[in-house]
């Protein structure tokens, strides 16, 4: 008969939580997030949101693409369209949460203990968690993951605050450079993460289809851009997979 691992004592759990924060600061994502959110904070300032609104949006939404959509399109698009774009950009959380939570589940873990890890799951936390969690005993994973997530989120909140304050104080040229950081950073992280034809093609097509759709003035630009470019990329991917299967 195997003995179920018990909850670690509070001081051990706290130590593990701190280890998680240290792992966050040592992660390359910590610095990428700061840079990304400096641009986002500057964007929020230019569009007219408040400092605390920006900070709260990072705590609550905790998804840079969704926040970029929210901040940059609210003034020009219908609310319904913004909500739709935000939700489409966050679908990725479903498989990510479904994949990471089972690594923390064990007998005796209550569902409410998993709520914080669920909310903290974002691409950066997930990638580091999938790498680091299997290396430690199962009863320590929740505390570690919470530390990792809160550490990375802190980097994002600090970056956002710095960008917001700088945008208000810098001369126009430097604030322009700060605002340009968001498109540059997203372009780079998309280029680096797109290991498949599907991702790369969808991104390239979206860059081209977006302005074309916008010029037609039919409304719901973002939705149409996503649907048209994304579906074409998906179909090309399907065709290629089918051909590869036939060839082998």
């Amino acid at each position: 008969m195997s003995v179920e691992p018990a909850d670690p004592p509070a001081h051990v759990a706290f130590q593990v939580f701190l280890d998680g924060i240290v792992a966050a600061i040592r992660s390359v994502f910590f610095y990428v997030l700061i840079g990304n959110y400096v641009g986002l904070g500057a964007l929020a300032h230019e569009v007219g949101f408040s400092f605390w609104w920006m900070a709260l949006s990072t705590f609550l939404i905790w998804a840079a693409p969704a926040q970029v959509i929210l901040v940059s399109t609210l003034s020009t698009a219908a609310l319904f369209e913004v909500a739709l774009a935000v939700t489409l950009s966050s679908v990725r959380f479903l498989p990510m949460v479904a994949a990471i939570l089972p690594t923390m589940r064990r007998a005796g873990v209550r569902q409410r203990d998993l709520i914080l890890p669920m909310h903290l799951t974002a691409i950066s936390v997930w990638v580091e968690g999938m790498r680091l969690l299997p290396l430690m005993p199962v009863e320590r994973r929740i505390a570690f993951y919470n530390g990792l997530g809160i550490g990375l989120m802190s980097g994002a909140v600090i970056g956002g605050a710095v960008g917001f304050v700088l945008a208000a104080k810098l001369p126009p040229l430097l604030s322009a450079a700060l605002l340009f950081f968001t498109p540059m950073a997203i372009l780079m992280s998309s280029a680096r993460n797109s290991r498949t034809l599907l991702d790369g093609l969808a991104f390239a097509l979206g860059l081209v289809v977006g302005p074309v759709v916008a010029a037609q003035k039919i409304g719901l630009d973002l939705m149409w851009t996503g649907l048209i470019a994304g579906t074409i990329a998906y179909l090309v991917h399907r065709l290629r997979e089918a051909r590869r299967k036939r060839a082998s």
Partner: protein
Amino acid sequence: MSAELHAYLILIVIGFLPSEVWRWLGIALGRGLDEQSEVILWVRGVATALIAGVIARIVLIPPGALAGVPLPVRLAALAGGFLGFLLIRRSAFAGVVVGEGLLVLGALVFS
């Protein structure tokens, strides 16, 4: 309703809920979801294209101070940054530095 309260309401209803719902579904559905399933792949394509569309919009119809930089400079900086990324060991850092450098340089020369 005050404008400030309205902004927070929008943050919850248009930002937080539509995004968070996928995390809830992830915890509810739990195991047994294939990341390579066809529906997930299609949604990933749509979401990626949508983000690219947002990038195009920020560069073409920029907010605030970025609008003061001429359009050809913005486009050249984006393309140059991407080229820098490809040529310099596929480094995202190099790409951002090249792109930002071109933007500032171009703005100084052409505006």
